[in-house]
């Protein structure tokens, strides 16, 4: 019954999204508005009920997973009675259908919040945006109901489920996908607002102000989701790397790049009324990238832990949806953009120009990542040749441009709107000294490191002090919270770049087969294999090595494992990682060699945690900006 209730809620929500779209068209064409029927109010109501229905459907799915109702096909294929509760809950979205339902739930929920919250926006634009949101939702409901029904029954029900992929049995599963999806799909509102505003022609500062919190919120969640996903891959896969340029990683990076550009241009729109057409374009690109990412990951054309199922009809369906929405949005853009009013002009050296430069560089990086990710698909479709594009391409082509962008981040916030008359050299003396010192020290102390990590160190040393300059000579209590947010986020960029550069320049690795009692050296550490023993967990058994690591002061104990799962039968490597202020010691247990030795792979990674600390700081900055503006808006409303 629960599964049927969920399915009914989905069908009802789909019907309401169609109603929402039709009512909007009727309302905008003034077909049936009268004294007695307020279509605008009806549309908002429909959007809110639709959001509630998707939440209901999602709750039903979680319930069948928690109960392990094996007569539901999805549960039987992906769950198991002997699984810890947290993975029963999180397992609801650890599969194709469930994750698509989560996606659609966020879409419906975002539409409901838009209907409830945006009061400052012109009524017509808001209604047009709700219609667009209904249209988006309709397509994805159709995809769920026709091609990916999460509530399909299985008759007869099996006695036991097939279990969840052990790589996914990790607390990361409870956090990473929902955060990322909230970010991905949160961008749908920016898309719908852009479509709505292009329909009504009201692209102005009010639209910028209405769009900004959505972009900021989605971007914060994307940043958190990507950072968490990176750390999850780092410790779960046991490969010692934190970013592999895997197409699925790129699928989350592309919306983030577009959202980062949009975040900066929507600020120009909201505070200056400039960059109107460009901001609309970016809003469309950002959510288009979310849809491209969903297509790449969910169509099964990529090989990865994320592609749960390979079913060509689903891929075609998603591709058709993608083509329809992206095509319609850009056709609308092409038709309406010439009618938009020109924003106020600005000089070559101004904050607007700096933000344009930010947008262009981000767009170039986005283009490079996009082409690199899709190139293998194009080539295979065209010639049948199979190929893959990896770190050598992305690092060498996108890396330097990202560093140029990071170097410019130091300058942009110091400029005034419209026209900057003061010379900036004086303010930037300290950052320049930092950068020069970093260059000199790195050349003398470590001449052997590559040019890209060295450049990274220099840029980090330049940006870290420069990012704090906007806070200088201001009363900290009277500085707007949003300014603090900007400074912290930019400082986070410097921290993350420093972590990446140090990790790629100074990581030490050791791989060897050793007998119990033998010692290996890695970086400053001596690591001794004490012994290998069995271990048992809730739904796995393992062999566990005991390692004692020392560097003169005290001893650390690390216990890397190889785990064996029976449902489904799989082995996984559980790396043991010790985090210190100075870095991480990362240890992986390999295979026995049949002669009493065990393979061990050890890494000493100085300051690697800065990468994720930087990501967290960037997200925190965004959160402060969001909170600061919300607080200001609330005070204005209250005391106006």
């Amino acid at each position: 019954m629960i599964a049927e209730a969920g399915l009914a809620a989905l069908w009802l929500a789909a019907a309401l999204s169609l109603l929402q779209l039709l009512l909007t068209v009727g309302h905008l064409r003034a077909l049936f508005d009268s004294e007695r029927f307020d279509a605008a109010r009806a549309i908002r109501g429909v959007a809110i009920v639709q959001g509630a229905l998707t939440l209901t459907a999602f709750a039903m799915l979680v319930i069948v997973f928690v109960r392990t109702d094996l007569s539901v096909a999805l549960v039987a294929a992906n769950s198991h009675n002997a699984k810890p509760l947290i993975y029963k809950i999180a397992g609801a979205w650890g599969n194709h259908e469930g994750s698509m339902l989560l996606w659609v739930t966020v879409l419906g929920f975002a539409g409901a919040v838009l209907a409830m919250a945006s009061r400052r926006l012109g009524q017509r634009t808001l209604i047009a945006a709700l219609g667009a949101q209904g249209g988006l939702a309709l397509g994805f409901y159709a995809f769920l109901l026709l091609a990916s029904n999460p509530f399909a029954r299985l008759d007869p029900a099996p006695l036991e489920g097939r279990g969840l992929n052990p790589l996914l049995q990790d607390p990361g599963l409870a956090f990473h996908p929902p955060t990322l999806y909230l970010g991905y799909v949160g961008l749908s509102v920016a898309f719908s607002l852009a479509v709505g505003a292009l329909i009504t022609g009201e692209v102005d500062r009010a639209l910028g102000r209405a769009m900004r919190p959505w972009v900021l919120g989605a971007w914060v969640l994307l940043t958190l989701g990507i950072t968490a996903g990176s750390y999850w891959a780092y410790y779960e896969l046991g490969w010692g790397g934190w970013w592999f340029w895997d197409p699925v990683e790129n699928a989350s990076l592309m919306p983030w790049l577009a959202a980062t550009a949009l975040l900066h241009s929507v600020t120009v729109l909201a505070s200056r009324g400039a960059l109107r057409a460009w901001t609309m374009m970016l809003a469309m690109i950002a959510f288009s990238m979310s849809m491209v990412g969903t297509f790449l990951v969910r169509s099964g054309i990529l090989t990865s832990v994320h592609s749960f199922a390979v079913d060509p009809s689903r891929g075609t369906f998603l591709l058709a949806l993608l083509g329809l929405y992206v095509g319609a949005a850009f056709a609308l853009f092409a038709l309406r953009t010439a009618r938009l009013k020109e924003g106020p002009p600005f000089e070559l050296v101004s904050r607007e120009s700096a933000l344009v430069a930010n947008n262009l560089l981000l767009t170039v990086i986005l283009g490079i990542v996009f082409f690199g990710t899709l190139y293998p698909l194009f080539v295979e479709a065209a010639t049948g040749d199979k190929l893959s594009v990896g770190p050598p391409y992305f690092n060498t082509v996108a890396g330097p441009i990202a560093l140029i962008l990071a170097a410019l981040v130091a300058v942009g916030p110091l400029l005034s709107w419209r026209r900057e008359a003061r010379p900036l050299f004086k303010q930037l003396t300290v950052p320049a000294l930092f950068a020069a010192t970093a260059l000199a020290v790195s050349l003398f102390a470590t001449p052997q490191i590559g040019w890209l990590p060295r450049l990274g160190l220099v840029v980090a040393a330049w940006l870290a002090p420069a990012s704090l300059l906007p806070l200088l000579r201001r009363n900290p209590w009277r500085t707007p919270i949003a300014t603090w947010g900007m400074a912290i986020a930019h400082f986070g960029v410097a921290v993350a770049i420093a972590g990446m550069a140090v990790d790629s320049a100074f990581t030490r690795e050791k791989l060897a087969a050793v007998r119990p009692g033998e010692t290996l050296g890695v970086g400053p550490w001596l690591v001794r294999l004490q012994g290998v023993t069995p271990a048992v967990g809730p739904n796995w058994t393992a062999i566990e090595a005991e390692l004692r690591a020392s560097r003169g002061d005290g001893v650390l104990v690390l216990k890397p494992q190889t785990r064996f799962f029976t449902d489904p039968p799989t082995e996984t490597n559980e790396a043991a990682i010790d985090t210190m202020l100075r870095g991480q010691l990362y240890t992986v247990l390999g295979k026995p060699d049949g002669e009493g030795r065990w393979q061990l792979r050890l890494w000493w990674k100085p300051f690697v945690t800065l990468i994720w600390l930087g990501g967290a700081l960037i997200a925190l900055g965004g959160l402060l900006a969001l909170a600061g503006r919300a607080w200001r808006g609330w005070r204005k409303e209250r005391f106006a």
Partner: protein
Amino acid sequence: MKPKNQRLILVVIALASVLAAVLLAMWGLKDRAAYFYTPADVAAGRAAEGKAMRLGGMVQPGSLRREADGVTIRFLVADGDARTPVAYRGIVPDLFREGSGVVAEGRMSDGTFVADNILAKHDERYMPPQLGNQAAEHKAGKTLKQ
């Protein structure tokens, strides 16, 4: 800048940077994309020496040897009639075994494929699409023999 020109200038700059991105990407992809080859392709001389590539096929049963250091392995990857010797230093993924499919990243060096990485299968049900057809044929062959 006059307002009229400003929009035009912005459009031109935007188009120029998109073009720059495309050109950069094409330049970068020209010699940084790793092609997927089978041992038959290698035997036919399609895989250039020293260029990053992927090799896929079956681990030939009985060919797996371990070197004295305990972390280097050598084996043959086979498809049909052709064989390519592979050397790999590292921890093999869990589902790597003789007689099963494998995809390795690396480059050819003196007739041996030196692998930097052996790609993991994430679970039993998962098969890299690049190997999909071959694996299906292999299975079908087995069934016929029985």
